[in-house]
């Protein structure tokens, strides 16, 4: 996987998070994983198709997910219910949609699939390419971006 494929997701992650939780996250050290495992208690999985294909996983602890959902809803801390799950899934959708736009500008036109929220750690997300991982450190906790994408023949 090309390292350049993760940059749009990190850029979009920082911009979208800053907009929805009103504080700018810091990105951490890039790491490589040979397979994509959910390492956090709540993970949003989004598929990517087109000039690049694969998936992106946004992982965070349940505590962080609950805080993010509350910040997005402008409500006091809430339980991690259906509405909170939906808010966190939508966060992944917004970041991925923005990143897809950045990829398109770089010549990789692609579409994203609706998000799926996975609860529980150590669940493997099947992939044919190693995943690149960048953590984003926010005031509400760490959000890990895992990107496993490969170029297809549709790339311009």
């Amino acid at each position, binding site marked *: 996987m090309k390292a350049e494929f993760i940059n749009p997701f990190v850029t*979009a992650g920082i911009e*979208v998070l800053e*907009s*929805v939780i009103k504080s700018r996250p810091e990105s951490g050290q890039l790491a490589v994983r040979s397979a994509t495992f959910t390492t956090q208690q709540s993970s949003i999985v989004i598929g990517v198709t087109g000039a690049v294909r694969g998936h992106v996983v946004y992982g965070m602890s349940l505590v962080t997910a609950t805080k993010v*959902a509350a910040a*997005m*809803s402008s409500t006091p801390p809430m339980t991690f219910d*259906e*509405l909170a799950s*939906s*808010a966190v*899934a*939508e966060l992944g*959708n*917004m970041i*991925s*949609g*923005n*990143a*897809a*736009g*950045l990829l*398109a*500008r770089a010549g990789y*036109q692609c*579409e*994203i*699939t*609706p998000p799926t929220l996975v609860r529980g750690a150590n669940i493997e997300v099947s992939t044919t390419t190693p995943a690149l991982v960048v953590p984003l450190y926010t005031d509400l906790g760490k959000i890990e971006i895992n990107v496993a994408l490969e170029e297809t023949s549709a790339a311009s």
Partner: protein
Amino acid sequence: MSGILVVDDALFMRVTLRKLLAEAGFEVVGEADNGRAAVERYRELQPDLVMMDITMPEMDGLAALRQIRSMDSHATVIMCTALGQERSVKEALKSGAADYIVKPFKAEKVVEAVRKALPGGRRP
């Protein structure tokens, strides 16, 4: 009062839009969580305006927009999209969407777009 149909597969977005539209004095007359349901709800409710997400399961917002506009050529539809989905936005505008808003959006942008798009510039 103008009736609005909110279409988004995310419960969070439907709740958020319903709340901010209600606060601005608009009435949300119905919701749908995919394009197919949106077409059915449109036929049933005949709302003044539709807020339509693009990326949804079963039938996406573009297909639903086209079906709604083929049923009612005066249908007013505002697309909700992530930044960077220019291709989808262009297709939507070509297919008759009145406007689009970009997620994550600010409440005032949504209200402004709705006021501008409502048939005859109608106010709540």
